[in-house]
């Protein structure tokens, strides 16, 4: 074998550390990656085309499945589109409920990421610890909404029913900071973890911006771009920005850990409000015969994996003429083409894992 021989390697689609069914076609020279070609579409369900055949209320339960780890965010987007069209202003209590559930959902999504990322790197214990805490959140969701991951709790103009079991949330946020400290003790300064992540997969700010990277990945590259700061839903909530300048895998890990702490902080504020809030009063939009007035609608939100947005063009029908989702992971997958070149194969797993890619969101 000559030294210049190239090898084509399929990473995935069934590889356990590709989080779903991502197939990366890598061109290798030795262990060095010369090029990377992501092949997506294994989980394509036609979410956008489906919308054109269904009424808005029929479509609402299915959007939870776009990103099954953070379903609330996509329900929220579709609800926002309809609320925008009918100019419904959400009462403070509905806003607080939604913020609390969104942030709980964000934490559960980040927890799964922490576990899965460490599993990719060969550490098994944190996986179980992260899932243990995630389970608490999922159980709360199950108690409240009826299911663990497909909540279908937000409806046009409000929420399905009044919030309940606040003591469970209180327990979750009282336990979480300690548990996050535990993860940090195991992971953050661990020399093996540091060797595998620090300085690996450096994402320069201009590359990130040019590749439309948003969310934690962008903030770990040093740009404070968080939609929650300008979101009307989060108005009145006080939280700090999580911005790191490390640009590498370790910074992205640390940023997610820090963001979980910030989310706990936000939930705390929402909880304080909800405890003394009056009974739920909301102006729901009747979903039967719901026809969106003719026009274009756009809504966006800061999802766990970056900016998520929804665009709807309506011709005044009971279903959209065209509906488009923008999801953060799609751009992260595309970034792998650039980020993996010149790295070694064993770092590829760490780098791809650190971007928090989730495939149903990519393929839609």
């Amino acid at each position, binding site marked *: 074998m000559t030294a210049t021989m190239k090898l084509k390697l399929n990473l995935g689609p069934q590889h356990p550390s590709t989080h779903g069914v991502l197939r990366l076609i890598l061109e290798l020279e030795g262990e060095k990656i010369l090029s990377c070609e992501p092949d997506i579409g294994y989980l394509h369900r036609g979410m956008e085309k489906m919308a054109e055949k*269904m009424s808005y*209320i029929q479509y609402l339960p299915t959007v939870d499945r776009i990103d099954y780890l953070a379903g609330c965010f996509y329900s929220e987007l579709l609800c926002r589109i309809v609320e925008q069209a009918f100019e419904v202003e959400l009462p403070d209590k509905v806003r607080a409920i939604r913020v609390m559930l969104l942030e709980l959902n964000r934490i559960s999504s980040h927890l799964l990421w922490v576990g899965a990322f460490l599993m990719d790197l060969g550490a098994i214990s944190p996986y179980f610890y992260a899932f243990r805490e995630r389970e608490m959140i999922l159980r709360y969701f199950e108690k409240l909404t009826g*299911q663990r991951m497909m909540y*279908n709790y937000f409806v046009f103009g409000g929420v399905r029913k009044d919030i309940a079991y606040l003591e469970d949330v209180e327990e979750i946020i009282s336990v979480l900071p300690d548990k996050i400290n*535990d993860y940090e*003790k195991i992971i953050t*300064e*661990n020399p093996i973890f540091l060797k595998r992540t620090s300085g690996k997969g450096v994402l320069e700010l201009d590359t990130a911006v040019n590749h439309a990277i948003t969310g934690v990945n962008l903030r770990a590259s040093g740009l404070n771009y968080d939609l929650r700061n300008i979101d009307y839903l989060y108005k009145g909530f006080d939280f700090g920005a999580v911005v790191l300048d490390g640009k590498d895998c370790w910074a992205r890990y640390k940023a997610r850990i820090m963001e979980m702490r910030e989310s706990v902080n936000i939930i705390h504020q929402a909880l304080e409000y909800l405890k003394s809030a009056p009974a739920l009063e909301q102006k729901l939009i009747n979903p039967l015969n719901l026809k969106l007035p003719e026009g274009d609608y756009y809504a966006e939100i800061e999802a766990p994996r970056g900016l998520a947005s929804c665009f709807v063009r309506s011709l005044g029908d009971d279903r959209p003429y065209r509906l488009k989702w923008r999801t953060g992971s799609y751009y992260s997958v595309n970034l792998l083409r650039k980020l993996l070149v010149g790295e070694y194969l064993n770092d590829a797993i760490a780098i791809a894992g650190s971007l928090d890619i989730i495939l149903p969101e990519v393929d839609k």
Partner: protein
Amino acid sequence: MIKEFKALWEGLWTVFKHLFKRPVTLEYPEKRRVLNDAFRGKPSVDGCVGCGICKRVCPSGAIEYRKNDEGKVYFYKFDLKKCIFCGNCAYYCPKGAIKLTKEYELASSDKNDLNLIYKGGTDD
């Protein structure tokens, strides 16, 4: 070097402490979690008046019903092969006739078992 050793020790100690904690898993199927009333499992119908709202809000087309000449529902079917347990039908039912039960073990070797048919639109 000392810093690295300290970090490793701290991590291992945290993991070691978990040895003395109770297990967090349940030995399913011997032990089961207590489910809340809100749980969205197998649907059931009792007292349908045939307004058709459930059929209109169902995202997967899992509901089918037939009315006789007097407008009475004599056949109501949930197709569990299609149902995604979103709960729209139960939430929008004006009579509260549709309920989602706590039953979640729905695997069957006969696909006809997965058609829940209610004669007369009631449970019997």
